[in-house]
């Protein structure tokens, strides 16, 4: 029987609750955003007693459905002040789902200045005092807890950035190889740190597992779905070979690769940091070009990237991180970027926000563009140790930009703009402007259609069709984020007609219900509107659905494109 686990850190108590009927049909983002909207006062301080941190596996998580092992984390974001959902792979989601935990809600703040951990198993949750691992990095936490609790334990942890409540702090999730995946965006690690929880361990021994209402129908749909994932060139071939970093060269060619803190659209050193170079480097050094972030992933876009001596350096080495430290900070040394990626994992800080932040810090003159050695030193010595400068840097792009009087701060609603220039890829600009999450490419990935010719083509340099494209993708994404599915299932879903119906059939077979395509669209609309209403209640309005001024005034080469949507054109997004 599915249940809600509720932990009160003020009282240091917990209880198991029945799932309210209104929440029964929800999972993942749909559930975290519903709970945050219902229970968190929108005007509360994100690091105060009234914010809640909610984790929820998706509707299909824990089933044999391919790529269904994502976990959603939600709260009011200390980075943006908006509602936040950030999802990640790793092993925790499937373990929670098998334990019948539909959501874990953490509320309150401890009265004493002491640290705690949560341990979840078939009997519920235990709150324990923690001293040994306070101040330790995420990798050391994993090593120590595998020895203390067992190798199979699932883990959600914060690094020192979360302990220090830095607004770029993330929540890390142990992956099947005892490395990390991240609930990266929006500073949710600071929310966990405010509640004084260093880690959450999960033991799914003797978990009841989950039941599938119509196993035969499920099996047929799951097979069709998996075939679509393997048949599509993006999810079946491109991603497992080159990883997400395959995007460096195509965005560079299209003039949409933000370079030198969003000054140019192309980077001279692009080939050195490209997916093609990464693939060749990994193969030459005996690493793994493909790797999954959770059991049951058949896309395998991750990788294990070794150093020059063939030793593990990092994994889950993503395009956005490589773009940000690479093109945006003008660093063309992939090994240095890999080392920074690993350090950010260990410190527990969002690699997108931190990369965008360093671009702004370089513009501010704190360090020079291209100076990877100084960047590595500042990660370790300033952010990692929480010096006064490190606290400013750990607050993200807005924090450092404000402290140093920089006007070119690429953010929306306080969150750093990732990897795709909205002047030369206009659809993604609509997503950045309107997403209730702040600037988030995954919220409505128009790059697929603007740049990659997946799901048709809409000219990235023109305004026509962009609002509708972003709206349709944001609605679909909100629904997919509720299933526990990896967002990369959208590539086959956009091109292969059998894919999306098979996904819906799996949900119907799992729960014995009869959702239609329209129901799924309506779910996506409901989620977006619920999230937006939270933001309105928190004081946001349509004037916050805007890109920074410099995008309208500074043309970006090579196309010399500017952001040229009127306010009314952007606001049309919400007309649904």
């Amino acid at each position, binding site marked *: 029987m599915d249940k809600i686990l509720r932990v009160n850190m003020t009282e240091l108590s917990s209880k198991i609750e029945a799932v309210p009927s209104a929440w029964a049909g929800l999972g993942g983002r749909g559930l975290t955003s519903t709970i945050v909207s219902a229970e968190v006062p929108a005007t509360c301080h994100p690091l105060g007693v009234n914010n809640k941190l909610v984790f929820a596996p998706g509707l299909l998580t824990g089933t044999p459905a391919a790529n269904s092992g994502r976990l959603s984390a939600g709260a009011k974001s200390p980075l943006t002040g908006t509602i936040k959902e950030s999802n990640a792979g790793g092993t925790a989601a499937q373990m929670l789902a098998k334990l019948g935990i539909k959501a874990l809600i953490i509320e309150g703040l401890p009265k004493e200045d002491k640290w705690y951990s949560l341990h979840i198993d078939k009997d519920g949750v235990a709150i324990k005092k923690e001293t040994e691992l306070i101040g330790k990095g995420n990798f050391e936490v994993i090593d120590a807890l595998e020895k203390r609790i067992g190798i199979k334990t699932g883990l959600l942890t914060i690094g020192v950035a979360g302990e220090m409540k830095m607004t770029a702090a993330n929540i890390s999730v142990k992956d099947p190889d005892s490395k990390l995946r991240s609930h990266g965006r929006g500073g949710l690690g600071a929310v966990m740190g405010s509640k004084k929880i260093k880690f959450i361990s999960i033991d799914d021994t003797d978990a009841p597992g989950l039941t599938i209402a119509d196993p035969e129908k499920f099996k047929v749909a799951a097979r069709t779905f998996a075939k679509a994932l393997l048949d599509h060139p993006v999810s079946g071939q491109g*991603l497992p070979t080159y990883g997400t970093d395959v995007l460096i060269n*195509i965005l560079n060619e299209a003039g949409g690769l933000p370079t030198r803190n969003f000054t140019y659209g192309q980077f001279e050193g692009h080939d050195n940091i490209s997916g*093609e170079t990464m693939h060749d480097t990994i193969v030459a050094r005996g690493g793994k070009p493909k790797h999954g972030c959770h059991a049951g992933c058949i896309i395998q876009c991750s990788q294990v990237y070794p150093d020059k001596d063939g030793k593990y350096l990092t994994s889950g080495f*993503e395009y956005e991180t490589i773009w940000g430290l690479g093109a945006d900070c003008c660093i063309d040394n992939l090994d240095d970027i890999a080392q920074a990626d690993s350090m950010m994992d260990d410190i527990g800080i969002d690699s997108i926000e931190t990369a965008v932040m360093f671009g702004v810090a370089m513009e501010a003159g704190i360090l020079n563009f291209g100076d990877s050695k100084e960047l590595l030193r500042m990660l370790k010595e300033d952010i990692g140790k929480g010096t006064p400068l490190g606290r400013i840097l750990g607050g993200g792009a807005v924090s450092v930009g404000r402290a140093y009087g920089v006007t070119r701060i690429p953010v929306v609603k306080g969150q750093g703009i990732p990897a795709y220039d909205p002047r030369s890829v206009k659809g993604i600009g609509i997503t950045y402007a309107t997403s209730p999450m702040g600037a988030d490419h995954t919220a409505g*990935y128009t790059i697929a259609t603007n740049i990659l010719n997946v799901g048709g083509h809409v000219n990235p340099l023109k305004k026509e069709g962009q609002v509708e494209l972003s709206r349709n993708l944001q609605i679909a994404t909100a629904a997919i984020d509720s299933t526990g599915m990896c*967002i*990369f299932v959208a590539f086959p879903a956009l091109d292969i007609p059998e894919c999306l119906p098979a996904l819906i059939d799996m949900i119907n077979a799992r729960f014995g219900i009869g959702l239609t395509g329209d129901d799924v669209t309506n779910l996506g609309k409901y989620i977006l509107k619920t999230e937006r209403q939270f933001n309105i209640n928190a004081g946001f309005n349509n004037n916050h659905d805007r890109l920074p001024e410099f995008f309208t005034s500074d043309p970006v080469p090579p196309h010399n494109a500017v952001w040229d949507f009127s306010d009314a054109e952007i606001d049309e997004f919400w007309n649904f």
Partner: protein
Amino acid sequence: MKIVVKLFASFRNGRFKIDEQEHPARTDCRKIMLNLGLTEEEIGVVMVNGCHASLDQTLQDEDTLAFFPLIGGG
């Protein structure tokens, strides 16, 4: 006329990254694709001078032509 041809991802296997080629005036993208032993089915994206193009687009002297298989990430 002089055309710079760029290849990406799996299209580089057994071919090249970048090549400066000489072609007769009014050559289109399809002709160069066929010269490379690529088929229309394999092509994901064609760009001429950083803008998306169709295989039927006629090239001008000193154009840069880029071929990508269907790729994605994000």
